[in-house]
C-alpha cells in the first residue's frame, strides 16, 4: 500500500520536474511567439506584457512584404538542401567503408572527423574566407554550401558510422552471393535498409545548415545572404525592430519544428540506434 503510494509520489515528482524543465526551455520561445503576435505599436510597450492584448499578424505582413526576407528564406532553403544532399553523398559511402572495411586507417579517419567537430568555427572562418575569395565564391550559394558541407559532413559521418555499426557485414556478402556487384549490394540492399538512419542524418545536416550563422555572416554579404543574417540585421544601428525580428524568427523556426514533430519517432528510435535491427 505505502509502496504504491510512494511510487505515485515519485511519478508525480518526476513529471513535475520534467514539466519545469520543458517550461524553462520553452518560455523564451513562447515569449518570442507572443511578441510576434502583438500589434507593432504594442511591441515595445512599458511595462512589457507577456500575452498580447490583441492578436495581430501585422508583424508577419510587414516582413513578408519586404523583398529581403523572402529572398533570404529562399537562399537558406537552397543552401540547406544542397548542403544536405552533398553531405549525404560524401558521408554515407565514406561511413560505410570506414565501418565495414575496418582498418587502422579508417579508425583514424573517423577520429579525425570527430576532431574537426571540436575546432571552433571562428578559427576556420578566416581561412575559409580566404579560400572562397581566391576561388571567387564569396557571397555565392555555392561558396556557402561548401562551407556548410564542411561542418555538416563530420557530423553526418559520425551518425552514419554509428548506424552502419548496427548492420551485419553478412548482409553485403549475401547480396554479392545473390548476384550483386559490391556497388549494387550497397545501392540495392544496404541503402534501403539504412533509410531511417539516412533520414535522420539528412535532418541533422539540414538543421546544421539552416541554423548556421557565423559562416553565413562571414562569407555572404548581399546576394547569397541567408535568413539568420537578415533576422539579426533587424537589430541595427537604426534601432531594434522587435516586431519584424520576432515574426521572422518564428517563421524561420517553423519548418524545423514541423519536420522534427513529424519525424520524432524515427529521431528517437534512430538516436537509440535501434532503427535497423530486425
Amino acid at each position, binding site marked *: 500500500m505505502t509502496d504504491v503510494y510512494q511510487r505515485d509520489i515519485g511519478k508525480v515528482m518526476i513529471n513535475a520536474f520534467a514539466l519545469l524543465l520543458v517550461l524553462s526551455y520553452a518560455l523564451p520561445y513562447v515569449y518570442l511567439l507572443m511578441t510576434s503576435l502583438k500589434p507593432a505599436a504594442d511591441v515595445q510597450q512599458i511595462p512589457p506584457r507577456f500575452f498580447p492584448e490583441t492578436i495581430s499578424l501585422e508583424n508577419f505582413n510587414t516582413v513578408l512584404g519586404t523583398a529581403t526576407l523572402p529572398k533570404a528564406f529562399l537562399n537558406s532553403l537552397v543552401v540547406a538542401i544542397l548542403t544536405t544532399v552533398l553531405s549525404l553523398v560524401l558521408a554515407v559511402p565514406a561511413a560505410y567503408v570506414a565501418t565495414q572495411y575496418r582498418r587502422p586507417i579508417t579508425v583514424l579517419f573517423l577520429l579525425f572527423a570527430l576532431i574537426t567537430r571540436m575546432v571552433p568555427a571562428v578559427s576556420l572562418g578566416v581561412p575559409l574566407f580566404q579560400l572562397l575569395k581566391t576561388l571567387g565564391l564569396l557571397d555565392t550559394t555555392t561558396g556557402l554550401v561548401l562551407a556548410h558541407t564542411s561542418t555538416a559532413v563530420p557530423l553526418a559521418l559520425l551518425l552514419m558510422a554509428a548506424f552502419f555499426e548496427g548492420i551485419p557485414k553478412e548482409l553485403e*556478402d549475401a547480396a*554479392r*552471393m*545473390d548476384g550483386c*556487384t559490391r556497388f549494387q549490394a550497397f545501392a540495392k540492399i544496404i541503402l534501403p*535498409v539504412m533509410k531511417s538512419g539516412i533520414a535522420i542524418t539528412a535532418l541533422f545536416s539540414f538543421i546544421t545548415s539552416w541554423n548556421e550563422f557565423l559562416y553565413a555572416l562571414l562569407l555572404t554579404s548581399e546576394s547569397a545572404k541567408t535568413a539568420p543574417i537578415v533576422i539579426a540585421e533587424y537589430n541595427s544601428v537604426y534601432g531594434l525592430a522587435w516586431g519584424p525580428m520576432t515574426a521572422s524568427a518564428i517563421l524561420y523556426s517553423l519548418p524545423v519544428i514541423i519536420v522534427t514533430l513529424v519525424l520524432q519517432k524515427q529521431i528517437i528510435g534512430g538516436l537509440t540506434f535501434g532503427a535497423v535491427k530486425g
Partner: protein
Amino acid sequence: MAEISLSNINKVYGDSFHAIHDLSFDIRDGEFMVFVGPSGCGKSTALRMIAGLENITSGTLTIGGEVVNAVDPKDRDIAMVFQSYALYPHKTVRENIAFPLRMAKIDKTEIGRRVEEAARILELSQHLDRKPGNLSGGQRQRVAMGRAIVRKPKAFLMDEPLSNLDAKLRVQMRAEIAGLQRELGVTTIYVTHDQVEAMTMGDRVAVMKAGVLQQVASPHDLYSRPDNVFVAAFIGSPSMNLYEATLDGNRLTLGKDGFEVPAQVFESRPSLRGSTNRKIIVGIRPENMDDAAIHPASAEISAPATLVEVLGAEDIVHLNIDAPWVDAGDPDAVTEIGEDRSAVARFSPKSTIRPGDIARVAIEAEELHFFDPDTRASIW
C-alpha cells in the same frame, strides 16, 4: 552442379596471420561435404574463399573444372546460407527469395513460379508476404534456404546455418537440409563445429584444426579409422579416452594394469609390431568399455569411479585411470572442473557402480586405437 577442387590453398590475413595452410581436396559433383573443427580453425575462411568473399592468398580453386580464383562471387553461380541468415530486413519473404532471380534477370512469371515452388517445398507459402523481422528463427532459416535453392546454383555453401536454432529444431532442420540436398543433388559444403551434425549429415567430412586439414573421410571411416589423435578425440561423443601406455610383446601396460592385445589387432595394424617395447598412445572409446561384473572380457583394468551419470539407457561412468593422460589438442573440449583427465565409459544401465567404488572395467581390446606418441598419427 559441379565438382569443387581445392589445391594447396593458403590464406594469410593481413601479412602475418596464416589462417589456412595448404588445403587440398576435391568435392565430388552432388556430394554433401562437411567442414568440421573447433572454433577458429578456419572453416569459415575456407568457405568464404570458395564463395569468393575472401581472396585466396595462394593455391588454385576450381569449380566445375574452371579456375575461379579471380572470379567475382556473383559470377561463381554459388548460393550461400549464412549463420545469421543475412535476410534482407526491408524485403518480404517473397522478395527475399526472388532477389537472386531478379538479379539474374529472369522473367517475371518464371520468378513467381519458382518462388512459389521453393516456398511450397520449405512450407513458407503462408508467410510469403511477411517481413523477416516477424518470423520465428526456424522460419528465417527456411527463408535463407529458399533464397539459396530457387536459383538452382552449381553449389550450396552453408556456414553453421543451424547454430541459432534451439536443440529440437536443429535436429529437425538437420534432417530436412540433408533430405533437400539429396533431392536436389546439388554439391554442398556445410560448415559446423558440431561433430554430431557433421557425422549425421555429411557424405564425407573434412576435419580441420588450426588451419590444417586433418582428415577427409566418410563419417564411418572417421570414426573407425581416425588418422591421428586429434580426429580420434574430436569425432565421437563422449570423446575417445587417450592414455600413454607401453606395449611389450602382446602385452599392453596401462598404468598399474595390463592385458593382452588380441592377435587380430596386430593383423589389422601391421606397423604395431614395430612399436613394441616402447611408449605408445592408446585410445579407448567410451562405448568399448563396460562393467566387467556384467559383461566380462579378457581385457580388464580396474579404476575408481569418480562420477556416475545415470541416463536410463546407459550409465556414463567417469574413471580415474592412473596412466598419463594425453591431451588431444581440441581447444573447445569441455574439461569439467575436477573431472578433467578422467576417462569416460558407457556402462550398461544394469551396472551398480557408484562413485567411490573401484570399478572392474572390461575393455573390447579388438577396438583399441593406437597412435605414435611423437607424430600423434595412427599406427596402422
